[in-house]
């Protein structure tokens, strides 16, 4: 059977651990614990650092995802027009996706440091310097980094979506007297909606994974504003607070499942509507 090797490994390293994790979140000890119902969740929700991590996470997703989608869509639309050097430009936008964050993190640190280049510019124009990584500005730094990294990915998806829209639709719209803005909203965006669902999904998922960037930039215990869910989970792991960790993990799984199934349902509704 073709599926067997994959299924065995997949079950062993993902599915079974998954189920175990959910089960453990309802017990009081990792090994041979007794069932305690929702106690772990109560404790978790009462924990200050969990709330901090969760609200940061939602704030980050709420800011970065719409920004990223708007910018990458704009870029894709521009790149889809007649242009010189198109392939070179496209390569340049995708390159950050490939370059490891770890490789360029030193440049970012120097740029955003208290004595760094960004503050030098601010100072030059007579503004007060900001301690970017130790203030609420750190969230902004993270958003910039996330967009820098992911814009190429979304742009590729949007470009593929744009190329599936037949030119006739634009011709028809023009003949009916639609201006550029109307064409954008009534042709481009409507026919791009299936792509949009996927982009939205991937962007949200990737924003949940921004831990890597934060960790490289600011370490295990960064400034409060960018203390993310995964920091919380990693730190719970190292302090052996398994109950809180599995409860947090289960909540996160729940969140992702809701986002995914919700988006898929809306998409199906949309497709039926189009037909």
């Amino acid at each position: 059977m073709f599926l067997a090797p994959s299924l065995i490994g997949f079950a062993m390293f993902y599915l079974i651990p998954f189920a175990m994790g959910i089960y453990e979140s309802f017990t009081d000890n990792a090994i041979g614990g007794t069932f305690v119902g929702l106690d772990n969740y109560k404790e978790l929700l009462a924990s200050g650092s969990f709330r901090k991590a969760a609200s940061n996470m939602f704030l980050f997703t709420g800011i970065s995802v719409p920004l990223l989608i708007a910018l990458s869509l704009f870029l894709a639309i521009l790149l889809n027009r007649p242009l010189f050097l198109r392939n070179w430009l496209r390569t340049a936008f995708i390159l950050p996706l490939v370059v490891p964050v770890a490789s360029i993190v030193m440049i970012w640190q120097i740029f955003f440091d208290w004595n760094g280049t960004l503050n030098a510019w601010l100072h030059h124009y007579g503004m007060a310097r900001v301690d970017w990584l130790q203030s609420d500005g750190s969230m902004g730094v993270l958003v910039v980094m996330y967009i820098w990294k992911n814009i190429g990915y979304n742009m590729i998806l949007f470009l593929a979506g744009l190329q599936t829209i037949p030119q006739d639709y634009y011709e028809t719209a023009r003949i009916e007297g639609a201006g550029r803005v109307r064409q954008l909203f009534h042709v481009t965006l409507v026919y791009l909606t299936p792509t949009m669902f996927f982009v939205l999904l991937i962007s949200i998922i990737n924003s949940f994974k921004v831990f890597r960037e934060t960790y490289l930039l600011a370490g295990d215990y960064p400034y409060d504003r960018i203390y993310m869910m995964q920091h919380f989970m990693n730190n719970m792991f190292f302090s052996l607070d398994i109950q809180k960790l599995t409860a947090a993990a289960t909540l996160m799984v729940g969140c992702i499942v809701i986002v995914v199934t919700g988006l898929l349902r809306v998409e199906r509704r949309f497709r039926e509507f189009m037909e």
Partner: protein
Amino acid sequence: MKKLNVLPMIALTIMLGAVAAAMLIPILLTFTNSLMTEQEIGRNYDLIGQMTDVAAGGKDAFVNLKILPDWLSLEQYTQLLIFSPKYLRMFWNSAAMVVPIIAGQTVIAALASYALAKLRFWGRDKLFMLYIMTMLMPFQVTLVPNYLVVDKLGLMNHEAAIILPGIFGAFGVFMLRQFMAHIPNAYTEAAKIDGAGQWTIFSRIIIPMVKPGLAALIVLLFVDYWNMIEQPLIFLQDSAKQPLSLYLAQIDKEARGIGFAASVLYMTPLVLLFLYAESYFIEGIQLSGIKG
């Protein structure tokens, strides 16, 4: 035919070129800074990471990112390659983990995705959905259970703790399933009528047709696993076994002098592979975005 206006085209090209240049700056600066001597780096970025308090009488001192080195020098590279064996070791560690993961995941995912795309059995689409969901989860979600499994297998602090879960990762299954779903069933049915068994259909018809998919998968997996941070951070406490991605995360002030060269060498395999296989890379991303 619509006539092309050259002027707006030039304006747009320049505008996008500027954006592209801004995006490439961090990469370019890393490269140019890697050609400075350690001394120059030390002199230049000395103030980074220190709080100068202006109110308490400190000077307003700033560090500008230096674009070009005073002297072109390969000192950082020689320091790194000749005098710090740790770096080479970690480079080797990275390779020794990434290569088996890619090889393993590609083979196993190819088999599984054939079943998920072309064979009929009960619960097939539900199972595929399960793979997708798993793929979307952040690493931390399965951290504890994964830890317990690894511990039970006695693999703690062993490279296999990274490699085995990597081999069974869901991404390869997802991507190849999407590629295979686009192959018309007429091909497999025709082969079946000619008396071909499943294995023949898989190896003679499906595999040759998804070669671009395999290439795309290899590129994407390489990028993903060469960059991994979370897994080795948890499972490899022994620094002699850690991959290069963690070396750069832990680089401290003393090592900044060679950090840029370390960064450049670290990203080189990825950038080269990307430039070489860019079309596969793009195709892979686009196809994974289309629902089969």
